[in-house]
């Protein structure tokens, strides 16, 4: 885990450019949102989760989350079947903020096209550079103000 300008980043994970992370666990992929999302969006109050057995395609909406009257859509980082859903989020959506890489995981997907789809995600050394750019972009637009207060 590294810290980039106040945001915790798990370097070994894969990321979509919308800040959804993917962790490979054998043939399955665990999915969540990163610390940047939680700190930028503010506290999450609702999560609309998919059902076990649902099939998702990479880039499709996987779950909907609400914070501050904003309904955000989280996209699937890989295609496959949803084999497990974190039901704890139904009762406490703020786990996404409090423990984004741990108890705040969202779903487990049994991937069907893992190897090629992982290539579409940000990983390895590129993670640090991407996150640094994201933070700089937010700073430039003044969107960073909130994160510093958090």
């Amino acid at each position: 885990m590294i810290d980039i300008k106040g945001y915790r980043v798990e370097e070994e994970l894969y990321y979509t450019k919308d800040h959804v992370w993917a962790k490979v666990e054998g043939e399955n992929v665990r999915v969540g949102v990163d610390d940047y999302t939680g700190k930028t969006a503010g506290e999450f109050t609702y999560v609309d989760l998919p059902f076990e057995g649902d099939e998702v395609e990479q880039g499709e909406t996987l779950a909907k989350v609400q914070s501050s009257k904003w309904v955000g859509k989280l996209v699937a980082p890989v295609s496959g079947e949803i084999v497990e859903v974190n039901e704890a989020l139904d009762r406490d959506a703020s786990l996404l903020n409090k423990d984004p890489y741990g108890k705040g995981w969202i779903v487990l997907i049994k991937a069907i096209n893992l190897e090629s789809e992982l290539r579409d995600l940000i990983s390895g050394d590129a993670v640090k550079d991407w996150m640094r750019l994201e933070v700089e972009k937010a700073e430039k637009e003044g969107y960073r103000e909130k994160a510093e207060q958090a």
Partner: protein
Amino acid sequence: MKKWRVLDTGIRTAAENMALDAAILEAKAKELIPNTLRFLRFSPPAVLVGYHQSIEREVRVNFCCQNGIDINRRITGGGAIFFDRSQLGWELIGSKESLNFSVASETFFRKVCSAVICALRKLGLEASFRPKNDIEIDGRKISGTGGTEEGGAFLFQGTLLMDFDVEMMLKALKIPVEKLKDKEIESVKDRVTWLKRELGYLPSLGEVKGAIRKGFEEVFQVEFFEGNLTAEERDLFQGKMDEFRSDKWIHKVRYPAHERQILKSSHKAKGGLIRVTLVVNSRLRRIQSALITGDFFAFPRRTIFDLEAALKDIEAREECVRKKVLHFFKNGGYKVLDVSPEDFIEVITEALSKIEYPRYGISLSEANRIFTVNGTLEEILKKNIPILLLPYCAKLKGCKFRYEKDCTECGKCSVGEACRIARGKEIVPTTIVNFEDLMGTLKMCKTQGIEAFVGSCCEAFYTRHREDFERIGLPGILIDIDNNTCYDLSKEQQAYAGTFENQTQLKLDLLRKIFSNISSPARM
């Protein structure tokens, strides 16, 4: 300079406007259209719930059906709103990339709202942003907003109140005011405002739209061109109409009714009475909204409205309320005369403690008719309760025992029945004949080592004398009474002296429920 489109979709039904939101957002996600500022209006009037809300919990469905008010669901977050024909909706649909963000933040909301604030200033009004995403004038909300995203596109929308029928809104939405009394309507009017009220005249729609357009041009450094829906947008719109007219969409979210609780409490602080009404989602344990009223003095006037906004969406737990209230008063430059942050924390926490009442078979509406002193309901029910205190005002007006401690249980008033219920539980009933008698009885109970009592009194009496109960220190459960009380009739002086001449009604069902929770056989 960048060119954005301004689109006026005119007056439409709720389903059409919701389908257009989805269609234009999808068109933007597919990069088929430029960034767009859209103006929208509604006819018939409409109630729109937020994406995650349940119609049953937020809307008075029968009233809306009987009065030709459309009901629909937004694709954006936030609370239920009432959109009558006079209101103007505005929204910005754009690519996240063009505004340089990946995750929407409060600063982004602030930036979009600043365009509308700029417009209101052009109309001569001192508007400002109130976190997390409202626009207000001197503490009163004039524009509420919400947003969503799809792929690389976002939609951020708001209402602008031009002229407003507060009573109609209160009838259409389940806002926690009980009887639509003048006082309750006033407390809502205090919290919202509209252009006609602020300006003293109703500006033309053209003037307002022009100001908003200029506001966006200045804030985002863009130029607008007037456009219409494109062929692709019209196709998407037509393709979505069935969905947005369907029950499946409108009733997409159904929560069990018990998950939305209205919890009330009041507290007499040195500086005045504080009443709090909370709407709480008990499953998510979150405060949906808070209404705080009373007769205290707050500076500036907007203090309480800002405090209510700060309490919105926080976790319904004492530690979260404490943190929020202390932070609010520490940093905001707010002052409430002779009312401390602790007073607010106490009254809010007390209201929240009622979340647990259904465990005792006590329904939501009943929960607000029970008051406790010197302990929570849970704590007091565990104690040995040997005595029931009944108010003389519930006895028959002509009864010769009206001003006596005893009752013959003749069956002509609710006191006799209450006595019978008490005796069945080996609890001793006694009538309280005036205020001194109450104080004397409580002191005597305390001296005799009695652990707790059950009693009955009206809310006004409880609120006014809560400190007296606390001074004596005996834990007790008080059940509200029905009918016009001395306080409703402004005859509290007579009641205090024991000469009040109206007859009230005890809530026997509630008394039975409380007694059914007292497990240990009680003995005097």
